[in-house]
């Protein structure tokens, strides 16, 4: 009996070794949380230049204690030149003191030169490696990603948070592309390499996100201006806010509207050798600024103003769609997808030559504008 008890005690003591603890334990203070990944084309050959930035938690936490004057940055930045992203991670791993950790990566920045060369390998890398955070953002930098990561901004301690938080202002400005890494991957797979990405421009102490980078076949082929991006967002039904401003002939200051709601629908009008599409746009606006001498005091005036805006929105949309058609020849407004989903019989005739057909498709826009509020003054 005593022996049995003894054995039991020994067994339970031994079980401590296999029942407790965690095989993969890595304490939080032994990790570097990479916040941004910047990818550029290297000067030499086919290589890429990879830049990681990660916050130095010790310094950020200590900053409140009064050591703010130390001058050194809270954010560490390392770059390396490598053949692939995976190789770059290993290059950098032997230069930093802690393990790099990508589950909290917020931003992936693509340098312009690299994006023009094509980045299908990046899509593959992200989909193959589950430990990359896919709720982050991916942007194309006008210029070098490395320079964007060197910005010292006054708004946020962390650069990654600064960039991702700009996206939250999407409801205020619909002039950039709101897309997460996840949606981007989804779209790249569905369209086999065509997408719009947000464009990031670098200033002296800040960055701005506006306009779009046109990606065709996993390559950057050009840019869309902020207004053109607004047009595409109208078609895609992605407008959630923002402003519409245009000059009124004979007036010295422009008229401004805030965008309330916008909905859009695509219709196929004709399916000849080239299809004819109609974009039906319904927009609700709030009047926010008019020249002082312009009084909106009757329904007729409001109606004529609505007509005026309708024309304006029509031309914004048409210009943007035409640019995608004629200049870039890439269907990012979802005409092909619309045909595939709703008119599969017709799509069969077009799908093989869609790249040639899309630029020649005829597009008409019909906008219906409702001005919901004119403010508290006439």
């Amino acid at each position, binding site marked *: 009996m005593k022996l049995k008890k003894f054995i039991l005690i020994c067994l339970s003591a031994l079980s401590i070794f296999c029942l407790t603890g965690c095989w993969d334990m890595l304490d939080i203070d032994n990790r570097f949380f990479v916040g941004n990944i910047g990818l550029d084309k290297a000067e030499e050959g086919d290589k890429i230049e990879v830049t990681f930035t990660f916050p130095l938690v010790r310094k950020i936490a200590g900053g409140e204690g009064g050591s703010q004057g130390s001058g050194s940055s809270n954010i560490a930045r390392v770059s390396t030149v490598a053949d692939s992203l995976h190789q770059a991670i290993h290059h950098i791993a032997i230069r930093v003191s802690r393990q790099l950790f990508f589950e909290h990566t917020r931003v992936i920045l693509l340098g312009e030169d690299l994006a023009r060369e094509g980045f299908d390998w990046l899509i593959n890398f992200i989909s193959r490696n*589950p430990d990359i955070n896919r*709720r982050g953002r991916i942007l194309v930098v006008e210029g070098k990603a490395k320079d964007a990561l060197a910005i010292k901004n006054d708004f946020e301690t962390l650069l990654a948070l600064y960039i991702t938080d700009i996206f939250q202002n999407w409801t205020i400005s619909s002039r950039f592309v709101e897309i997460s890494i996840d949606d981007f991957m989804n779209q790249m*797979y569905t369209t086999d390499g065509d997408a719009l990405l947000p464009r990031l421009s670098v200033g002296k102490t800040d960055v701005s996100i506006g306009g779009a980078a046109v990606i065709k076949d996993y390559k950057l082929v050009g840019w869309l201006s902020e207004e053109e991006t607004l047009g595409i967002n109208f078609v895609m039904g992605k407008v959630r806010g923002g402003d519409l401003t245009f000059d009124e002939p004979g007036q010295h200051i422009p008229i401004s509207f805030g965008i309330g709601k916008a909905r859009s629908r695509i219709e196929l009008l004709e399916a000849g050798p080239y299809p004819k599409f109609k974009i039906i746009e319904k927009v609700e606006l709030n009047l926010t600024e008019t020249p002082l001498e312009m009084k909106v005091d009757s329904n007729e005036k409001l109606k004529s103003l609505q007509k005026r805006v309708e024309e304006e929105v029509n031309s914004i949309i048409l210009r943007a769609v035409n640019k995608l058609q004629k200049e870039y020849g890439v269907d990012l407004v979802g005409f092909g997808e619309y045909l595939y989903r709703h008119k599969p019989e017709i799509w069969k005739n077009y799908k093989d030559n869609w790249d040639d057909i899309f630029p020649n498709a005829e597009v008409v826009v019909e906008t219906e504008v409702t001005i919901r509020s004119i403010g508290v003054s006439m």
Partner: protein
Amino acid sequence: MVKKMQKNDDIITTGQAMALVINAAIGIGLLSLPREVTSEAGPDGWLVLLLGGFFTLMGALAAAAIIRQLDGRTFVDYVCFVFGKPVGLILSILYGIYFIIVLSSVFRTFAEVMKNLALERTPREFLILSLMLVSVYLIYHGLEPTARFMEFILPLWFIPSVVILSLGLYDSDFGEFLPFLQTPLEKLLLGSLSTAMSMAGYEVLLVSAQSVSRHEKISYVMAVSIIVVLAFYALILVTVVTSLGIAETQRAIWPTLAMITRITVPGKILERLDVVVVIVWVVVVYTTVCAYYFAAALTFTNIFKAREFRSFIALLFPWIYFLAMIPQNVLEAESLAKLGGNMVIATSFAIPLLLLIGGLLKKRVKKDEA
């Protein structure tokens, strides 16, 4: 005869039988099912799923009819009675082998997923062995405690996973299911077969039917469990396809995991549900392997007419383990799972159907003789 050998209380209730079937059916299939159905039928995948559910229901009802014919005999005895001893024994061994293959593929997939999801550096051997030992601990006590555990644990993983999946429906694009009905019919039928493989699980109840208390309610048990399983899989398919898109669903090895790890609820209140998913995943796999492990041990016990099924738990242990360790990578593990899936056609559809017809014929012949 076998009944005498078992303890009197080793009888399971109707609810426990249901929990057993549901738990056995929902296993590793939930991770790969969206890929399988969308690669077969694209946007018409949900049709494939419904068709597969219908086939499974038919198979399950056939199995229920067999269970009603048993009259206290074991499944192995009944197979021998209908087909004659040599053929019956071979078929029973086929069932045993089938259970072992399914078991090892489940164990292996479990380890692969855990390595990708959370425990990157933990060796597979350790993950598989520890789960095996825990399942041995449960089934060692017999069917009744196992089934009682299943009944108890079912809501604990079912409800959280339904909640998580529903969160994935936020901001999703149902247009992914268009165009409707562009898939040729033979592809739909072929696809539904592979769906039926993921939904099988009632064969576990078939071989342990000797312990079910009320045979007259068995069709009801089967129908309800298959419908629950079907509804659960339908929810998975809809969430995964609407949030990943058809193209990526076809490409990911485990589309369901890919979907779950990226659920974000607006306002960032809930992000990174991976932890909950790991817990649910372990429980789902655990219930599946317990059901199949028990079925495997019981089948071999009945084949050898042994008194004690516990020794077979120990005897099968190394075989299952080594079979699980054979695949060199995740693709080979997939083909092991496919092999088990293909055997489902025999064990869950063909043999039960033949058995049902043969048994009825035999009964009539006997009556005529009398």
